[in-house]
């Protein structure tokens, strides 16, 4: 896997890896992620190329260039997905500085890497693809480590902190334009206990961030044309995964709490939004070239049952998203994958709660990835 530049038996080689993915999405109703209803859409592409070198015993340097297109997002703009200087003092203590992947749950840091998983779409209750610009990478640093606990297994821990610069999609001609969105700070961490049973790990992740947003309304009088809002988001996930030989089982449950307030033109505090969701996933590699998988995912946009100052959020089809998915992954050879995936969806939470959308709908995806 990958290319090695230099003597492969020397520790100071440059490892080069890359991938190219092209997908197709078709839904029976509702546009999801892209214009997926009607004739479907091919606007579902990714490409990445990374370099890693270890110039010193404990020091490594790496960088991944990445571009993607997903409907109106990405537009093949080349960017640094991650880059870092990593110094590993001991197995139980390493530090990394640069742009690092956001560790949150079991799979957030591979959300944009098709080859690294079985499903085309990871369970959207925990890993919504619409968040890819928001929550994949952090400019800042990471502290990580792995501590062996003898007969009790081991502890793997990672903590990241920093800021996120969010590229805005093209909004020309839209009634509302987000003129700036940024996350000035974010902290997240994950602690996983690798139990004495081989392949079984259990743990949790936490996340806290501040989001600032300025929204511009074209054609509105100047004193009311701009709105500024600030949100503080907290999240927590409980995770369990079992990997043994060719079997993978995983389940996660998450809750988020979003406390938002408008700062201008009129300072207002919005009702707190409490979201929740989870999934259970299973995959099994039947042979070297064939691996089916399935998951059931559910999410609620708002479970806030109300208080004296705020009414309860409506608990209807616009607030929920059930997703039963099945995937067939074919590893054609060591460099090429083809996947087929079907979803039965109930609810419209993943569509932003569009009230007129069909509440029971299907989604079909095909994706092929070449990698080395």
């Amino acid at each position: 896997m990958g290319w090695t530049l230099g003597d492969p038996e020397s520790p100071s080689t440059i490892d080069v890896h890359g991938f190219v993915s092209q997908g197709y999405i078709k839904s029976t109703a509702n546009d999801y992620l892209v214009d997926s209803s009607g004739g479907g859409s091919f606007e579902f592409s990714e490409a990445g190329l990374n370099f890693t070198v270890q110039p010193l015993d404990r020091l490594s340097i790496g960088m991944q260039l990445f571009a993607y297109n997903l409907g109106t997002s990405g537009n093949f703009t080349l960017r640094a997905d991650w880059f870092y200087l990593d110094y590993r003092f001991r197995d139980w203590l390493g530090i990394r500085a640069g742009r690092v992947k956001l560790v949150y749950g079991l799979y957030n840091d591979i959300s944009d890497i098709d080859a690294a998983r079985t499903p085309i779409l990871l369970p959207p209750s925990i890993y919504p693809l619409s968040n890819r610009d928001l929550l994949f990478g952090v400019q800042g640093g990471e502290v990580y480590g792995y501590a062996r606990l003898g007969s009790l297994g081991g502890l793997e821990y990672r903590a990241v902190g920093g800021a996120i610069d969010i590229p805005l999609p093209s909004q020309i001609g839209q009634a509302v334009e987000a003129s700036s969105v940024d996350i000035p700070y974010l902290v997240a961490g994950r602690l996983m206990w690798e139990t004495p049973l081989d392949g079984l790990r259990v743990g949790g992740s936490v996340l806290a961030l501040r989001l600032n947003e300025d929204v511009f309304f074209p054609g509105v009088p100047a004193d009311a044309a701009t709105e500024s809002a600030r949100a503080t988001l907290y999240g927590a996930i409980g995770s369990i995964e079992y990997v043994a030989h060719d079997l993978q089982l995983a389940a996660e449950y998450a809750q988020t709490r979003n406390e938002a307030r408008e700062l201008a033109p009129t300072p207002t505090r919005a009702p707190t939004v409490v979201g929740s969701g989870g999934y259970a996933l299973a995959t099994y590699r039947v042979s070297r070239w064939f691996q089916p998988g399935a998951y059931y995912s559910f999410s609620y946009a708002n479970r806030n049952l109300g208080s004296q100052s705020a009414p309860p959020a409506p608990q209807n089809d616009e607030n929920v998203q059930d997703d039963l998915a099945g995937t067939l992954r074919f590893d054609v050879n060591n460099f090429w994958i083809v996947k087929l995936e079907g979803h039965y969806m109930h609810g419209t939470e993943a569509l932003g709660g569009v009230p007129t959308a069909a509440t029971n709908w299907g989604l079909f995806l095909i994706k092929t990835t070449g990698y080395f």
Partner: protein
Amino acid sequence: MSRSRANAAFSLLVFVLVFVYGAAVGTRVASGAEGFRVIVNLDNPMSSMDRRFLADVYLKKATRWPSDEAIRPVDLGPGSPARRTFSDEVLKRSVAAVKSYWQQKVFSGQGVPPPELDSDSEVVRFVLKNPGAVGYVSSSGNVAGVKIVAVR
């Protein structure tokens, strides 16, 4: 709503049971494959090694020997029978599952896999050349000049 959720959960349960059965069958099929011997450089004082420590080494969770020397694991190619046995018995995952593990690490910037060499003799040469190296060869491989360590 609750009925559709119950149906979905039942479907998933059936799927999981089928997978667990398949995993058990797959494990039985894997037994009886070619054996392997774990080797280190003659300068390495270790004569035996805990299996979980060896697994951590090959997954690069453990990167230092007790002497603080950097560990340099080396793999045989994915088609090697000894690699399949080593992967099943030490890492408790199939070769393909280990490849998937490294895909996650490689593309999220968390590390790169051990180098893969084509033959027992190349692995022995690598271990001879690198004091911190650890490798494995097929049980019939020539291991002159390196030390065999027991796996507990």
